[in-house]
């Protein structure tokens, strides 16, 4: 069951520029696994080695942070949009 996964520009570098990807899975974790199969190296951008999300990466199911749902076990269904959002710091350097 494909679910749309949206990536910000930083992560698009791992997916060859693709910003919206149809991934397979019934939970967020399965979606991420499917992304890793399509784009080797993707998982390291969002997960720590022990299988937890990096603390500077947020994942949203529609408009809700999965930290406040069922974390990586959050269920997804067709029509959902999952967004992966690493922290950005851009602005001015010297302050």
């Amino acid at each position: 069951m494909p679910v749309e996964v949206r990536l910000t520009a930083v992560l698009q570098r791992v997916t060859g520029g693709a910003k919206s990807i149809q991934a397979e899975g019934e939970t967020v974790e399965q979606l991420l696994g499917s992304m890793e199969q399509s784009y080797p190296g993707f998982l390291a951008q969002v997960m720590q080695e022990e299988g937890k999300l990096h603390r500077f990466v947020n994942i949203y199911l529609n408009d809700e942070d999965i930290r406040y749902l069922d974390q990586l076990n959050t269920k997804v269904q067709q029509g959902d949009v999952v967004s992966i959002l690493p922290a950005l710091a851009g602005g001015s350097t010297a302050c």
Partner: protein
Amino acid sequence: MPINVYIPTPFRRLTGNRTSVEAKGLTVSDVLHDLEARFPGLRAQITDERDEVPAHINIYVNNREISALQGTRTPVRDGDEMALIPAIAGGADENGATAPAGPRMLTPDQVTRYSRHMIMGQVGPAGQRKLMNAKVLIVGAGGLGSPNALYLALAGIGTIGIVDFDVVDLSNLQRQILHQTADIGKPKVVSARETINAHNPDVNVVLHEEPLHSENAIEIIGQYDIIVNGADNFATRYLVNDASYLLGKTLVDGSILLFDGQATVFEPGKGCYRCLFPEPPPPGMVPSCAEAGVLGALCATIGSIQATEVIKQVLKIGDPLVGRLLLYDALSMEFRIVKTRRNPNCPLCGDHPTVTELIDYEAFCGAPAREPSHV
């Protein structure tokens, strides 16, 4: 169809608190007489004994000041919009509260300069004075700081502080609209003050030409009402977040990279940057603008959203971007909003805080010692 007349806050006690009223007449003078018949006492507020409009009151017909037309003999037609804008605002705002301390009188030039704001019911003379009494700190005179500084200055924010220790570099000029070619080599805070005051000499620009760090952040941030974050490194971003929260200041946050932008507002007690991103990425994991690039016009989009949120905070109008994170993708030209929350386990603003004073942010972010790199 009669003429619609906007009534500013100080006169609304005479119109039963109505923001706009209808009146009839063929000229501005007729309308003023008709208003007097409907709302006794109103004309005495607007014209002097000789039935002339004194210099401290501006009257607009369809957004044009009547002294540039035919004065009180300016003809009006049904459906026209007329507005009465006094330079001297009353002592109470819309909630009946005492007006903030500071300048109580707007000069005629100020009335004209800010007329497009003051003519709106959400601003009015009382709101304009709030803007003129506000103190806003902008962290970084770069991509985001530039549009923030300009729009806040144009709006008449009374005091704008700028923290930056960099000098203007040629590579800044693709996006940093505070600085121009002739400013290359000049301290950014100096260039910023020149540009701001060229746009609006009323603004008191306070320069903080030094790096923001744990030893000076409380002292600097404590001088301001609202903080705007335009920093490009995670150490400063967490420092500004923590200091703003500890001082009870509202933080208007924005960030940009490549074609992506984010903006949100942190009000103390309603979540902070640590609730959103508990830890910074390890150095090198998320590239900087210098490494990856950034679209110049994106700075204006996000910076202008920040400036809008600052003005809303000062005026206490609308729904602030609190509890919401705005995401902007310039390539697909899409805006989205996701929810943010206060995390009860947040080390800063959670139920059992462990960060109760400023820490070593370079160590927290694993960042090397900072060098100006002209981003």
